[in-house]
Structure formats: structure tokens, C-alpha cells
């Protein structure tokens, strides 16, 4: 087994463990439709032999790059996914967003992502579920909180993510107590939790950005072409909301060239989220966001 085989086997083990322990307690997977959570979705199909036995949850800020939503719905239909999305309708209706000039970037992230996520998981804000017969989204009748949430974060993305466990408890306010995390040994995870908590599950924690692209290439995982240069010498390295995510200078036109760029080329020593403006707002902004439940 090579490195990619081992990473895949471990991630599948964690996904199956999540399903074993949480199938009766409302399990879901967060899907940002970026490359990492799409690899995670691919791994889930492998873990469950072609099935995805839990809903995929997407938080729609309505400022996502439009190709992302089209891609999400195409895969949801093709793979028969139980597709759900949530949003902060109130902030959107009142135009309390950064692109509309009302608030700063970080507050915008907090409203449209963290808050929307928290309430969508808790089930106290409306969720929309894809009706596969019509292809449209309809208000979801199920309002139960999700108690197990599978998330595609990677430890190498930035400092605070490197502190994560594979199974990590969060309080109902989505708070994360980094200093008090229980130990995780071998293949044994903390799967029981006191009332008022939910568990975040991180099956691809050990993957690097390079591993992700090598896996996408090996498995032929479908991905959004925005990651490739379309001829203008620019491509996205990380996808998010268009007002806050800028493409990087790169002429990588296929996966092979992306991998080359990461391995030995110009991106070797540049942080992956360098195109994300909210990370730069203050020294520990992402950590502040994450403590409040940001992914």
C-alpha cells in the first residue's frame, strides 16, 4: 500500500465508524463543494459501497461562485444524494453582508456561514431538501438537530485545524474547547457524548493539499474547472464566496500541472488560503471564527 492507499483506508475506517455510532442519532456530512469535501464525498461512496447513507448539507451564502451551485446540484442528482442546504435568510433579506457594504468581512463570515451553519445543524432555521422527482429544493420537514457532523477539514490548512481530533465534541453553541479534548488512541474514538453536545468527525484530517490532488487524479473525482487556468493565467486554489476569494496567478491547465506546481513549482511554499481575504483580517481570525463554529 502506498501513502494514498493508506490515507484512503484510514478515512474510510473513520467514515464507517461515524456511521456505526451515529446512524440512529442524525448524521450528516457538510459539503462546501470544494475539492476537499468532494474528495470526502467520494470516500463515503467507497466506504458504503456506492451508497451515501446520510444527507449532504451545504451552507449557501448566496455569494458563492455560481459554478459551485450548478456543480453541487449536478452531482446530487447523478449520485442520488440526499441534498440539503441552509442559509441565513434574515441577514440576506436585511442585506447585512460585506458585499453590500453593511459589515466587515469577518462579521459577514460569522452571519452567513457560522450562524447559518449553527442553526441549520440545530434545525431551528429552515432547511431545504432536494426533491429528486422534480429536481427542486423544498422546505425539509425534518427539524431534528444533527448530532454527528462529518467535516472535510485538513490539519495542514492552518494552525487551529492541526489541533483537531478525528472525533471532536462541540457544545450546542458550537464551542470547541481545545485544551480539554479527550484523548484518541489507535482506532478508538470518542463516540459517546453528554446531552447538549454534538460530534464533529474529520475523516481527512491527515491529508495534505497535495494528497487531495493526487487522489483526485488517481480516482478521477469530478471537480469544478475553476481550479484550473481557463487561459487567463489565473486559477482558484481554494473556493469560497466570490467577493472574498481571489484567484491566484497560475497557468496550471490540468491536474498534472497543479500537482507539479504544488510539489516543486511556485506554490510549494505559499499558504493554500492565501487567496482568502478573511484570514488576513487579524492575527488569529480564523481561530476566532472556528471557536464559534466555523469550519
Amino acid at each position, binding site marked *: 500500500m502506498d*501513502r494514498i492507499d493508506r490515507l484512503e483506508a484510514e478515512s474510510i475506517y473513520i467514515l464507517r465508524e461515524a456511521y456505526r455510532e451515529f446512524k440512529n442519532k442524525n448524521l450528516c456530512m457538510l459539503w462546501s463543494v470544494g475539492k476537499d469535501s468532494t474528495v470526502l464525498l467520494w470516500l463515503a461512496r467507497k466506504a458504503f459501497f456506492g451508497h451515501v447513507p446520510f444527507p449532504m448539507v451545504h451552507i449557501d451564502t448566496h455569494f458563492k461562485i455560481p459554478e459551485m451551485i450548478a456543480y453541487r446540484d449536478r452531482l446530487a442528482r447523478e449520485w442520488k444524494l440526499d441534498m440539503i442546504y441552509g442559509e441565513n435568510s434574515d441577514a440576506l433579506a436585511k442585506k447585512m453582508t460585506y458585499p453590500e457594504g453593511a459589515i466587515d468581512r469577518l462579521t459577514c463570515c460569522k452571519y452567513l456561514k457560522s450562524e447559518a451553519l449553527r442553526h441549520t445543524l440545530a434545525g431551528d432555521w429552515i432547511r431545504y431538501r432536494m426533491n429528486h422527482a422534480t429536481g427542486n429544493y423544498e422546505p425539509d420537514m425534518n427539524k431534528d438537530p444533527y448530532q454527528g457532523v462529518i467535516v472535510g477539514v485538513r490539519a495542514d490548512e492552518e494552525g487551529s485545524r492541526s489541533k483537531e481530533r478525528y472525533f471532536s465534541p462541540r457544545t450546542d453553541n458550537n464551542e470547541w474547547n481545545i485544551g480539554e479534548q479527550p484523548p*484518541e488512541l489507535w482506532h478508538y474514538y470518542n463516540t459517546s457524548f453528554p446531552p447538549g453536545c454534538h460530534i464533529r468527525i474529520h475523516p481527512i484530517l491527515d491529508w495534505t493539499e497535495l494528497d487531495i490532488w493526487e487522489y483526485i487524479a488517481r480516482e478521477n473525482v469530478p471537480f469544478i474547472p475553476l481550479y484550473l487556468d481557463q487561459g487567463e493565467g489565473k486559477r482558484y486554489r481554494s473556493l469560497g464566496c466570490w467577493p472574498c476569494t481571489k484567484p491566484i496567478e497560475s497557468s496550471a491547465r490540468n491536474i498534472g500541472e497543479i500537482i507539479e506546481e504544488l510539489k516543486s513549482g511556485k506554490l510549494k511554499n*505559499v499558504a493554500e488560503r492565501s487567496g482568502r481575504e478573511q484570514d488576513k483580517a487579524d492575527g488569529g481570525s480564523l481561530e476566532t471564527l472556528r471557536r464559534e463554529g466555523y469550519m
Partner: protein
Amino acid sequence: MNYREQFNIVISGHVDHGKSTVIGRLLADTNSLPDGKLESIREYCKKNSKTFEYAFLLDALKEEQSQGITIDAARIHFKTAKRDYLILDAPGHIEFLRNMITGATRAEGTLIVIDINEGIKENSRRHGYLISMLGIRQVSVLINKMDLAGYSRDAYDKIVSEYQAFLKRIGIEPFSFIPVAALNGENIFRRSEKMPWYEGPTVVEQIDCFEPDRGKADKPFRFPVQDVYKFTGMNDDRRILAGMVAFGSIRQSEEVLFLPSNKKSRIRTIETFSDKPPECVSAGMSCGFTIDDPLYIKPGEMMLRVEEPSKPSASRRFKANLFWMGAFPMVKGKQYEIKIGTAYILINLTEILGIMDASDLESIGNKSEVDRYEVAECVLETNRPVAFDHTPLLDSTSRFVIIDNYQISGAGIILQSLEDENISLVKYLARRENRWDAGSVTKFERETRYGHRAKLVLLTGSANIEETGKFLERSLYDMKFFSFYIGMKSLSAGLDNDLDGSIENREESIRRLGEISRILTDAGLIAITCMREMDDYDAEKIRELNSPYELLTIKYGRSPFDKFPADLDLPEDTSPETAVEKILELMRKKDIVPEYFL
């Protein structure tokens, strides 16, 4: 494609002995830092009027920077010419021991850092012990801050011989001892000119010599069944046993045995959801199997080859070495959840054979509980048989963790399987019967007055057993017998109101049901109850708890009963009327109720 190899190491040692500096230097000297990272940390230090330390590189979080200590097993990547490394940084503060352990269980090799001026401290020893217990065999010891000791060979030799003696006691033979001055990068990547007397490897040379564990595929085949899938969507009718191969390898059509159920079958297909399913799978692969026979296999069973000379034990009692890290001590008489392989069951601590402090290996003497950070040799008893190995050769199937207060609180290694007997239940029953304060009316008198014997009738299966149970109660009553229906819902609403539906509490609610039927049958009644989700071990436990009156088991419809056959087996399509008739017939045959009644 040729992927680079990745090797996981953990860096351990006492607080402030320089672990983070070693890591920082490894990153900087192997040119593994992202551009601007080092500069941003230097700038941060300047802005906050702090002396720059490599440790700040790793302390990515604000909280940590203010405390000056690493809180968690952070993951840090770096690469040498040979391969990629993942460092799991192990914090030195005792409060964060659980984080050190988290990192260490994923490592294949370790560097233990000791400050030459401070010498061997409590956590130098405790970490050493844990590394031994966690099964890491590739160890190198760095004697750090040599620059602050004048690069003295004598001082170095003294610590080396002292620590070597300690490691020997716990079964570790280190690959090397390396004198380093991490802050200056001496003997990390670059060989130090100040210590010409040292001729061994540098740190980077040493870790490049560590070997990933590749021997697992050559060991006896072990497949702990993680879960059993029967997805019905997309016309899928496969029943797949899923999991990760722990050791060895297996091919299609081989004969397999499941423990502890002792069921046998043959591998029909190997499932991986790829274009071409492999003919053979081996250690480390996550896969699935379908088997020839439609057996009821539970998650937690161990699958192995029928023709395997070295079989795991299947037992309820074993001797183990246990390291406790829970906030509350581990006590006798309390039920804990345990994870062994993929079996998640309940356990009791029944005997403590010895306790020592992991920081000095001193025996603590006779104690009735295991406190935090103590190591105990003890006897543990599970509530049902479980399959496990007990050899360092098959380490991952010999290890377990114990859950207390919703958290992994203890970890251990099984040393030996003990006689397979449910000692604690037998003892419990003996004590109970011994103390039973019987009334003045005898069993015989009641039987004579009521005209029937007392019994617990237990219905299980997929049919409408609740309706049938109530119907049976009514029929017996109409025949002037003394019958009583125990509703499980009434129990959970009242008597079991303090229990939630968790696995720990399930055992307790079964115990209570057993005790209630003991009383009702002692009162001479025919008690009737229904349990839909029940297996052979549950039934056996209720039977024992209800002794001396025992149990009549009725399986109505499909059920996972197998090893422990029911007294009466009724097909799903039997009508409730016929079912009751058949049950009454059996009760007459067993002389519980008379053949004729007036």
C-alpha cells in the same frame, strides 16, 4: 504514480526540555516551512517584545502563545531527501498527557528529548513508559542544550547511562542517543563541530533509518468486523461485512471462522467499490466481504481463517495492563464501556493485582481503585464473550480503551485470557439468594393454592409479540391462573426512568427486569414480557437472574437468536390465536400449568 512515503514520528519529553525547538529546527533546516511563516512569527515576537523561539512556530494558536506551552498533538509536516514526515508534537505538561498519548498512538517512531542540565525528569520517564506501552519500538533519545553544558561528554555520558537503565526496565532498546543543541541546529540536520567525540547519526540521519511497519501482512489473518451493511437503495441486495484488515491477508473462497460466535462460512466476494475488486486483501485495507451463508454476524466479531493455527481467545475475563487517565478513579463494581477491536461492550474491574506510578515505576501497593496516571495490572470482566489476541506480535487486536464519563479514560494491553466464566454474575446471584428474605408462605403452598407453577414467559421476534403477550395473559387469567403482563414501556417510563437508552444502561435495565421477574415469580405468578431487541446473551442473563424460577423463551417471527435456542419457535405468519394456543400447549407439556383445569 509514485507517491512519496510518509513516516509519522512523535517528539516527547519533559516540559521545557526543547521539543518544540527540535521541531522548529527540523522544519527550518530541511527547508519545509511555507514562505513567510518564519518571518511572521519573528515579527509577532518583535511586536510583543518577546525573544524569538522556534516553539512559537508551532504554537499556532493565541491561547498557546500566551501560555508558552504546546497544548495538543499538533501535526506538522516536513520532508527530508528520503521521505515526508508527519510530526505529532507531544506536549510536556502532565495536564496534557492525553494529548501526548493521542499523538504517540499514531507514530511509528519517537524522539525523546532530555535537557542535559535538568536531567531525567518525571515526564522523561512517564513518556518513556507510555511509549513502551503504546507499542512504539523505534526510539532515539536526544540529549538537548549541549551548548549550555559546555558540550561536555562526561555530563552526556552520565545521563545516557542513567536513562538507558530506565529504558531497559520497560523493555525499550533505543536506536541511538544523540547530543544536540537544538536552538543552534547542532546535530539536528547539520553535524556539530563542537562535539567531535560524537560519531553517531544526526537526528535527520537517524529518523531516515526508522522503518515503517511493513510486516503486518505476513501475520495471521485478523478482520475485526466493524459493521454489517444491507443497503436497500439502487436494488442492492448485498449483505456486506465491512472493516479494516488488521493483520495478514485473505483471498476469495477461503473458509472463515467468526469469534466469539464460532460460526463458519466461506468468503464469496471481496468488496471495495472499485472497477475491479481485488482477489486478495491484506493488512491496512478497508474493505468488505460477502459470505456464502446468510449468518447473523454482529459488529465486533473477529473473522479469521478456519485453518489458522494461532487463534485469538474468546472469553469474558482477562488480565491486562491498564493506564488510567480519567478525571475520576477507576473503581471496582462500576460498569464501564470498553472498546476491544471493533467490539464495544461493558466491563467490570474485578481485581487489582498491582499498581505503580508511571513516572518512577515504583509500586504503590494495595489499592482498591486506579487513580489518574497510574498503571495497574488487573483482571477485567466483560458482560459477554469477546475475541482478542494477547501478544505483542498482534498488538492492535490486543489493545483496548475504556470509556468513562463520555470520554476515553483508560488504555491497555491484554496480557492473558482467564477462565471463561461469568464470575461476577454467579457471585452476585449467590449473594442474593443467600440473603433472600423469604416470607412465610412456601413455594409449594403457593403452587397448591394457585394450581400452577411460577414462570417468566419471554417473547421475542419480529411478529406482534406485545399483542400476543397480552392475549396470553388474558387467556391464562380466564383459565383462573395468576398471570401478569410486564410492559417494557411501563418499566422505561417508571422504574427505568433514570436510565437513558445507552448501552451501559441497557445492561442495567435487563438486570432490573430480571430482578422484577424474580419477585413476581416468587409471588407465584406467571409473568409475561416482551423484548424485541434481545440476543442470546441477554436471554441467558435474564434466565440466570430469574433463577430458581427460570424462563420460557418464545421466538415469534425472525430474531437474532441462534446459539441459545428458544423453547418455542413460531413462524412469522402464525396468527396470535394459534401462537397463544401453542404456548399454552408447551406450558402444559412442561407441567407449568395442569393438563386440565376446573
